[in-house]
């Protein structure tokens, strides 16, 4: 029987933000997922950039709240963690395609290794950090149709 996946919630995390990412982190204080949207092309982008990756212009960027629901695009099970994560292995890191058409990499928790599938529906789990922001993680959306 394989070892159950760890939720990694006990790992201490201090995230140093880029100044151009700050609206994202501000949103997480209220457990809101706020990502960049390009007004000129009508497309979202993640991770945050100083400009639209579609037009190259800073003025085309605005921030919009999105649902955080999506499907697993890919995943890996870490059997050898990064130094801060040693002792929590195995744990899952997934690339999730959000319903607004961007991929977001985060831990996938509250599920077993056997349950994870590419294409599996997931929803946000907000993990509180010491500075009042929250870290976005994903969990299976078992109620999703």
């Amino acid at each position, binding site marked *: 029987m394989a070892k159950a996946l760890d939720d990694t919630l006990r790992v201490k995390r201090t995230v140093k933000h880029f100044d151009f990412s700050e609206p994202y982190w501000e949103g997480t204080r209220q457990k809101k997922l706020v990502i960049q949207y390009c007004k000129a092309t009508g497309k*979202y982008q993640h991770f945050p950039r100083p400009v639209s990756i579609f037009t190259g212009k800073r003025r085309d960027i605005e921030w919009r709240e999105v649902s955080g629901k999506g499907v697993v695009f*890919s*995943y890996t*099970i*870490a*059997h050898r963690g990064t130094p801060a994560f040693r002792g929590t292995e195995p744990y899952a890191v997934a*690339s999730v395609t959000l319903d607004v058409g961007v991929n977001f990499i985060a831990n996938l928790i509250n599920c077993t290794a056997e349950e994870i599938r590419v294409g599996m529906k997931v929803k946000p789990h907000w993990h509180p950090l010491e500075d009042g922001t929250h870290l976005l993680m994903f969990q299976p959306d078992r109620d999703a149709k």
Partner: protein
Amino acid sequence: MALRDNAIVAYAETKVMEKSDRDVFVLAGEMLEALLDKTGIDKNEIDGLVMAGLTGTGAANPFWAQTTADVLGLEVGFCEQVHTGGCSAAGCVARAAAAIDYGMCEVAFLLFADTHVLEDRTDHSHSYRREWTDPYGLMGPPGAFGLLSRAYEAKYGLDYGMLGKLAVTQRNHALMNENACEKLRVPITIDDYMNSRMIADPIRLLDCVMRADGAAGLMMMSRKRAREEGLTKCIIPIGYAERTNFKGGENLVDVTKSGHEICGRKALGAAGLGIKDIASFHPYDDFIIAIMLQLEAFGFCKPGEGVQFIRDHDFSYDGDLPLNTGGGQISAGQAACSSHNLVEAVRQLRGEGGKRQVKDTRNALVTGIGWINYGRNWGSSAALVLVPE
């Protein structure tokens, strides 16, 4: 003047070490001395220094190339450090040729020296990693290739045993390469590959490159100058292309496709060759699956047919498509700024492969992969076609 008017006139290489027993500048000096000895060129004739930017030891020094020129007593008209990660070695050849064509230098010393095990000054913190992957414990390249492998598997299916076949072939080549890292010169089987411990499932230990220390160097000049110097067994670059941040302005790209598709078309087009004409293949290997993805991207087979292609072909030095005949980085060690596969191709085309000499030395295709981007595959791709003079 064009790329193909230039020549690689000599190569030099140290043995790959688990950890260097001497300073990186000593390794650089050894490469300089070896190239001067092999060519008979006077040190004062060197007027170009072209170094790979893929260095752990030099990473924190913004004056690394100038510092190295000073340490070696070189006065140059072209002093360059090439920052395309694991594409740097091939990129150095193209940039040296361009500089020679333009008249910025006549005799270029290409230096790939690094001791990133002994002293690593790499810092990735001013990148996406600190906000978007480090907080989730995604382990650098193995984690990224874990995501990439699973995405490939979901799209096409993946027989990991065939990746094991590539791992075994490369290991067998390292057994014949006295310059490969001694720690890696141990035979392996496909079962050993399959049973090696998971690092970032589905990435296993024997998928991964091991960092090691060492150095290599090349000397380049125009073919005309090489003839004047009486230098023979020259190797000519006849096609080169690189692509950084492939589809970087798009979301939700097909991660099984890379800039190598573009590089392959351009480099082979410049060379006037088709992919079926390639006599030996020296693809960048940081993870075994990268080799398979390149077989597809360069058109040896169609997308999704990499496993079948591996099953159908023999990649040994004496097989139908010799591949990374020095062991690749995965079985020789990731040393010398990832120049290993380039230097091996030069050696083979000169007919100096010894026990592992390939029969067909009409040409060789060398590639590069550099940097890991967010949730895709890799940041830079490169392709270089070489032929003997």
